[in-house]
């Protein structure tokens, strides 16, 4: 009896500790984001840094984003066709492809790919700057690291990710079209006509809203974990892992919440 009571108490304590540390983490991230925003509104501004980050996050991610989109669109068309042929419903291919890509696959896959590329790079770079005292050096050189390093990254990601998602959507739809027309013998004009019918402004807006959230989380997690890194090379490694994992979770969680709210 007393043994099981003890283990129950131990379990409750464990749950409590977990909850407290999770809440503390959310609090720290929130303070970090709020500090960045409040500092970023006052000069000096760093347009050159913003452009540099925009290139890093957006332009240099295009190849990987394009490949992800075209492969996913192609596979989606094939799977829809295979499943649909059992019910004589193969004509749904263009509709499923456009809805699937624009509403879910485009934003989520781009978000995850860019998180893997960008959150890790940010955490590694800022983490190295932390452990080599470059962040402290910035402060002693009259430069606010929030304005100089964090704000440009957050803003660039907030703009770049939605743009990339729109591009990825187009490429993904093309991937589905390619497979449908050249492998599954769909009529090209007919396929595009159905695609156009199912492509709505509301869905595109929703994709942009979703991906803006994803962009914010990607940069926030990369910066936050990099900023807090300590303990040399191993610490930078941990920060990088934490950044990618937490960005993934936030992307998938926020995607689910937004989808359930918007389409529920």
């Amino acid at each position: 009896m007393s043994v099981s009571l003890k283990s129950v108490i131990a379990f409750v304590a464990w749950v409590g500790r977990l909850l407290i540390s999770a809440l503390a983490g959310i609090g720290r991230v929130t303070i970090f984001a709020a500090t960045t925003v409040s500092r970023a509104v006052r000069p000096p501004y760093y347009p050159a840094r913003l452009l540099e980050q925009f290139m890093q996050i957006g332009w240099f991610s295009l190849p990987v984003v394009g490949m992800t989109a075209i492969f996913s669109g192609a596979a989606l068309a094939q799977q829809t066709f295979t499943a649909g042929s059992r019910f004589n419903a193969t004509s749904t291919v263009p509709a499923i492809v456009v809805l699937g890509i624009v509403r879910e696959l485009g934003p989520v896959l781009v978000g995850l790919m860019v998180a893997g590329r960008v959150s890790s790079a940010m955490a590694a770079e800022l983490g190295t700057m932390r452990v080599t005292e470059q962040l402290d050096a910035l402060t002693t050189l009259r430069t606010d690291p929030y304005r100089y390093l964090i704000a440009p990254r957050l803003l660039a990601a907030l703009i770049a990710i939605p743009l990339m998602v729109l591009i990825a959507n187009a490429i993904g739809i093309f991937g589905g079209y390619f497979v449908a027309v050249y492998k599954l013998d769909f009529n090209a004009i007919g396929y595009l006509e159905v695609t156009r019918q199912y492509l709505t402004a509301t869905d595109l807006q929703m994709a942009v809203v979703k991906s803006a959230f994803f962009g914010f989380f990607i940069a926030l997690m990369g910066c936050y974990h990099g900023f807090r890194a300590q303990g040399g090379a191993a610490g930078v490694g941990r920060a990088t892992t934490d950044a990618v994992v937490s960005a993934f979770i936030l992307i998938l969680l926020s995607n689910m919440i937004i989808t359930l709210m918007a389409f529920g």
Partner: protein
Amino acid sequence: MAGDAKIVLDGVKKAFGSNHVLDGVDLEIERGESMAIIGQSGSGKSVTLKCILGLVRPDAGAIRVDGEDISSMSTRDMERIRAKFGMLFQGSALFDSLPIWRNVTFALTQGRMLDARNMRKIAAENLERVGLGSEVLDLRPSELSGGMQKRVALARAIAPRPEIIFFDEPTTGLDPIRADVINDLIVELVDDLGVTALTITHDMASARKIAHRVAMLYRGKIIWTGPRDRLYDSGNPYVDQFVQGQAEGPIR
């Protein structure tokens, strides 16, 4: 007079968890004086420095710079005070993504890409002060040796002409000859620019060369302060053990 000192630490305490790193540090540094704090690794030297720089907030006590208490200052006021400081970091902490000349003039532009021609000129002038020629201007920090990086970091610290310069273990990682070159440079710069200097070090030769006065930090407190000439006959058993580097003694 106490009110006249450039930097005053008054009962500064700082703990990280249960580790009381600073346990009531009292220290006064006069205007134009060069002070060295010596002490073992982990005695709180770096934390003392970071408290004065405002990178770490003390739990208790006051830190006054030109009579203004910085321990409870707003971010904006702190930015104003920090403009008086220059700092030479132990590992140089140069920005490896920027060329040397942008590193040296970083504080002047606050990291913005302004006024390239003028900034290159200022960088060259400051590099000359630390004995480096203009051929390094366009190199990256990783292309320089440790000793040269230290000089660039020194040029970066003095470029905005701060009133106070902090030196964090300036000779660590350098061979004895290069270390002495850096010591000479520091003495020369402190004299020429008329700055107030605070060095933390466990290199006795460096402390004796750079500093007018030396303070010893032990277990979070300043246990001895005196002119550098008294360092080897302080009459304090802790200082004696430390400066002579003996394993046996009151410090365990």
